[in-house]
């Protein structure tokens, strides 16, 4: 049952609900945990956010077209192993980083080719490559973990630029680019057209297959980049990098108002979704000190948010 979007009057209302929720959570947090809202501590704690955030950009575009990419976590794992392997054999950080990004790109391109050329359902394709990429990473690395990449490299994750963490700066630049692409360029609008009605999009001359191919390839490349940042942050590269990330990223994107059936979603919405999840996590783990509670809260948040949206939009329509 696709979300038909409805009138202009409430086009942004999902984002509004999430923003209000976010403000409530922040208020609540500031009241419970003194010093929680200070910019300094927020920036310090934001380090865990950036890999997710980068993956979420690509995922938003894919879900807008009605697809899904379950393989991003596994792609991160494979890219990390390639990074470690190349670094330990050649000793060059530059070569290793390029290999890492190239691996992500190739993984994404394989997904894209299977989805667009063979017209397989994205869920099936990425379920297969989810197993395959992780499997190749595990088989190739044999459980070995690479580390000691040097301080210069860990600056990629730990360094800062004008007071903003470097990965954060990268993310903000990319997010701006993606948001402009999505809302201002014809190709961005094509994505919504594909998500609403793929057939109609095709008949109106949009090269659906080519766009799909490039979307999955981009998602793979972003996974490579996320993997690079992750490896820099922990200074270890092993096969289980990014395990379980795919579901968290999808949670953030859907929470941010992107319709899982396609045709609806925005980059600012995704950023709100990411922030809401991030702040909730921080609050729960800071105040109650419990990681288990965290996942319960986020799981319920996802279901309740989407349920509330469905109920309200149904009432509006009738």
């Amino acid at each position: 049952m696709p979300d038909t979007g409805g009138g202009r009057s409430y086009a942004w209302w999902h984002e509004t609900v999430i923003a209000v929720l976010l403000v409530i959570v922040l208020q609540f947090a500031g009241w419970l945990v003194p010093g929680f809202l200070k910019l300094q501590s927020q920036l310090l704690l934001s380090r865990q956010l950036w890999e997710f955030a980068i993956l979420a950009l690509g995922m938003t575009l894919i879900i807008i077209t009605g697809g899904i990419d379950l393989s991003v976590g596994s792609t991160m794992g494979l890219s990390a192993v390639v990074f470690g392997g190349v670094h330990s054999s050649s000793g060059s950080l530059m070569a290793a980083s390029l290999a890492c990004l190239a691996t992500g790109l190739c993984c994404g391109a394989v997904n894209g080719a299977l989805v667009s050329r063979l017209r397989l359902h994205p869920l099936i394709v990425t379920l297969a490559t989810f197993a395959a990429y992780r499997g190749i990473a595990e088989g190739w690395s044999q459980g070995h973990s690479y580390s000691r990449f040097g301080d210069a490299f860990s600056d990629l994750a730990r360094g800062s630029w004008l007071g903003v963490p470097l990965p954060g700066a990268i993310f903000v630049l990319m997010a701006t680019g993606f948001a402009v692409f999505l809302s201002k360029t014809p190709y961005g609008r094509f994505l919504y057209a594909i998500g609403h009605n793929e057939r109609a999009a095709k008949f109106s001359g949009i090269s659906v297959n080519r766009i799909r191919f490039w979307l999955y390839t981009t998602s793979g490349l972003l996974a490579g980049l996320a993997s690079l940042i992750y490896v820099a942050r922990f200074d270890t590269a092993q096969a289980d990098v990014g395990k379980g990330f795919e579901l968290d990223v999808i949670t953030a994107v859907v929470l941010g108002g992107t319709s899982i059936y396609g045709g609806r979603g925005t980059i600012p919405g995704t950023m709100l979704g990411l922030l809401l999840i991030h702040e909730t996590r921080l609050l729960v783990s800071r105040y109650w000190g419990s990681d288990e509670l965290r996942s319960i809260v986020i799981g319920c948040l996802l279901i309740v948010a989407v349920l509330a949206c469905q109920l309200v939009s149904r009432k509006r329509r009738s």
Partner: protein
Amino acid sequence: MSNSQTLTVDHDSRPVCFSTRFFRLIRQREAGLLLLISLTSVVVGIHDVRFFSVDVWRDILVRCAPTAIVACGVMLVVVTGEIDISVGSLMALLAAVMGRMLSEQEFDISCWIGIPVTLGLGTLIGVFTGSLVSMGRVPSIIVTLGLLTALRGLTTLMMGGKNIDRLPEGLTQVAKQGFLGVPISILAAAGVIGLTSVLIHHIPLGRRLYALGSSAESARMAGLSEVRLKLFAFGYTGFLTALATIVDVPRLPKIESGIGSEFELLVVTCVVVGGVAISGGQGRLIGVLLAVVLMTMIRPALTFMDIGEAGEKWTRAIQGMFILLAVVSDSLFSWRQRHSGKVHAA
């Protein structure tokens, strides 16, 4: 590519009457899977003939059992056009509940109460999922994604960082040795498969699930209740997950909170590889079961290939390759069937 084509295409290269060709087309997926299974067994068997012993296959079937049980339920969910990716976390939660109830160190409740309660809880959570999907109109992938996270957290909370051991002697004995020499999980799986098969082929309810999946609109016009059918499909999956937990978990030395992680993806993979259309309305039980066997036999097969530790690490890669082989060959085949102008069903 050419390899995968020969896997499936050579069966109907001869010109035959339409109905025969039609049945062959339907059986394509099963034939391909059977071929993959036998090929794998032959390759491993040539390497080490002990692979064909009864014990090995008994072990493989025991490993298959929980996946097969749950896959029967998830298959029906997918047939109605929905999806359930929460079964792994549900399994963990039920294992924790059951463990805490039955363990001699915890509440030490009798099995006669504990097991029905576990089954009931599983069904209840399944029905709850179904009600969110059918009445709340939340997409099933989102509901079950949320539950996947939430139930896993609940499990860890319930276990309180400890493992549960010392389940009652009787239960572990039955689970390990089984009944008349047949492991209890295999018996349970056989029962569930029989039940599901009867449900699909001989009871109107089963046909209605397929009808709902192939066209919700027509099903509604024919007077079928979408809500009730979906409640049933999800409730049945919950019940089967509880059953799988009860027969499988007592075999393990202890219950950890990580039980069943990524089980949901394995089950969905088996359902999809078995030829059930993700858009609903079609799929055969036998294909799903063959896919379960294929996915499960890879690890035991690799241990027989005599490449030691290194081999087992490749399990997942080979799994992924088999999935790709199955779906790609299928798509190449169906591509030639319909003319290439058609947009794939989203």
